């Protein structure tokens, strides 16, 4: 029984990592510009399709597709940001919702048209498949990979935000946009780059998620709810908060399914509601 506790923790952790990669971009951009981007998961979907295309049509190895998924998604997101989102930073959040939902609809239809409605298969390389026996625990190799990979990405992200000039600008903008502008920081420019980074990470998350949750055109909508939950619980603009929330929800989801399968489907919502009632601004959130 003890072993299963660690097993559940491990699996939940891996799942949480996936949620983190998919959510962190939205949390930062929402915190920075108050821009409600419901199309965030569209970027995850784009990343997924990039990987699928490269692997199945071009024969690329899985790992090599990941950076491409990141870059392509980031570039596409910048195009969206510069042509559409930019005009709406000062619009009401309801208008922002409507625009980005419209974008989700368009992307879902486009994906269905280009790739069909079929589930996209992805065959991982042999060295990422199967499982390892570690101290009596069965650990999926892909999950180990996922955790290590996501931790490295998180580390890089935090380092970039903490120790670079650009990071300082972003943090200032998240803290107080008005003041940041006053200090001569190019908030719009910083935002565009942050937006691209966040979307790129979502694309990466989408590519990594295929093996665990699959990929079809409804991805852009199916994951939206989970991402919103992570962002809200974590607190806007807080990377640490998003990380903690993703872990917490990933682990409680997994533990709920293992120990209380009867209420497995309720648990993630109950956890979210109680966390938000306890801390309406999110675990690490400062603003409400």
């Amino acid at each position, binding site marked *: 029984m003890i072993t*299963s506790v660690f*097993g*559940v923790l491990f*699996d939940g952790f891996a*799942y949480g990592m996936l949620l983190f990669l998919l959510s962190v971009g939205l949390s930062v951009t929402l915190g920075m510009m108050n821009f409600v981007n419901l199309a965030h998961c569209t970027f995850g979907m784009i990343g997924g399709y990039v990987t699928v295309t490269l692997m199945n049509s071009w024969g690329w190895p899985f790992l090599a597709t990941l950076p491409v998924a990141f870059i392509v998604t980031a570039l596409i997101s910048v195009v969206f940001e510069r042509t559409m989102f930019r005009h709406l930073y000062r619009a009401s959040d309801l208008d922002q919702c409507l625009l980005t939902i419209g974008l989700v609809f368009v992307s879902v*239809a486009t994906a*269905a048209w280009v790739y*069909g*409605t*079929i*589930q996209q*298969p*992805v*065959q*991982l390389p042999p060295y990422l*498949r*199967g*499982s390892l*026996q570690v101290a009596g625990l*069965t650990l*999926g190799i*892909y*999950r180990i990979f996922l955790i290590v990979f996501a931790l490295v990405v998180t580390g890089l992200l935090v380092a970039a935000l903490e120790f670079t000039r650009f990071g300082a600008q972003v943090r200032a903008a998240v803290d107080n946009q008005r003041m940041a502008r006053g200090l001569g920081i190019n908030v719009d420019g910083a935002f565009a780059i942050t937006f691209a980074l966040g979307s790129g990470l979502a694309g990466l998350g989408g590519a990594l998620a295929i*093996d*665990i*949750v*699959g*990929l*079809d*055109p*409804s991805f852009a909508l*199916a994951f939206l709810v989970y991402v919103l939950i992570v962002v809200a619980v974590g607190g806007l603009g807080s990377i640490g908060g998003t990380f903690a929330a993703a872990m917490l929800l990933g682990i409680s*989801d*997994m*533990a709920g*399914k*293992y120990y209380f*399968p*009867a209420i*497995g*489907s309720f648990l993630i919502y109950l956890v979210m509601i109680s966390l938000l009632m306890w801390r309406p601004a999110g675990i690490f959130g400062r603003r409400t």
Partner: protein
Amino acid sequence: MRRAMIGLALFAATLISATGAPEQAHAQDSVKIGLIMSYSGQFADPGSQIDNGIKLYMKEHGDTVAGKKIELIRKDNGGVAPDVAKRLAQEAIVRDKVDMIAGFDLTPNALAAADVSAQAKKFMVNMNAATSIITTKSPYMVRTSFTVPQVNESLGTWAYKSGARKAYTLVSDFSPGHDGEGAFQRAFKEAGGEIIGSARYPVANLDFTAFLQRAKDMNPDVIYIWVPGGPQPAAIGKAVAERGIDLNKTKVVGQGELTFDEALKGMGDAGLGFITAFHYDHNHQSAKNKKFVANYNADFKRNPDMFSVGGYDGMHVIYEALKKTKGDTDGDALIAAAKGLKWESPRGPMSIDPETRDVVQDVYIRRVAKVNGQLVNVEFDKLENVKDPFKARLPKQ
């Protein structure tokens, strides 16, 4: 003020009196079929496969039957939405003047449309929805897919016969899953087996590690899994491999969706050894099916599946019934003609039960194996001419 109100009332009254029931305008030389299923959303893929099956049948057999041209009117149900299904069925009949309705990927939608079929006395072909009771809702309905008890009770019986004594069941937590669970458990227990544990996973669940770890911890001879298709089968396959479940000691069995083509592609060798019961697979060995699969691939660049064959055979029933009635589209005439139809389908011999209007067919037991480097479902056992066992148990009227 008062004059305005009177004017308004008069205007309203005129409008009402002007609306009679629109008369039934009808072209004599065509048969219109309202196709109602999900072309968009989460269930879009089954919808497009059914549609492909229909298209292929019409390509092979021409679009004219008994001197009448077949016209399809497609309507998107967009997912689980019986209110929409009912409206679309009503509109198909009222607005588009269709002669029959067909399609129906999901149970609630089929049930709602069945009301309309019964009320309007229109022939209805259920090409997919698999819950047993659906066909009882309209006396004008036939089904060309399968029923959940038909397949899963067969599997339960077979599992015991093959030596398993202790079973664990894991099903999706919604009605079809519950039905599958009930059917398997019932047959397995009736045969003499024991259910040592069961779990239901959330409908939208995408990570199965926790559930399978739990199942493995209980050491069953057989793990029965019911999944509704989509991304879940592949996720289950991967989780089974990851949890290190030894398929030689513990059989993993389920309804056919568990080992669909895309699922097998996704899970890779992890799926080797899974055993499923189903009525159709593109790997079924028969001349008829070989031709069907070849033509299907030529047109749609993918293999047909149970949805495709449901649509294909559905069109067969429509064509044959129309031939028998010589083009008469009256609901009573068509259903009478459809009852007892017997034919060789790509899936093997099948027929329409004259009593229940439900499908009668062989249920195959298949194991995932590698043939020419491809993972396929290889049939190694079958139960012949299985009727829907649920209706067999209903008190006879």
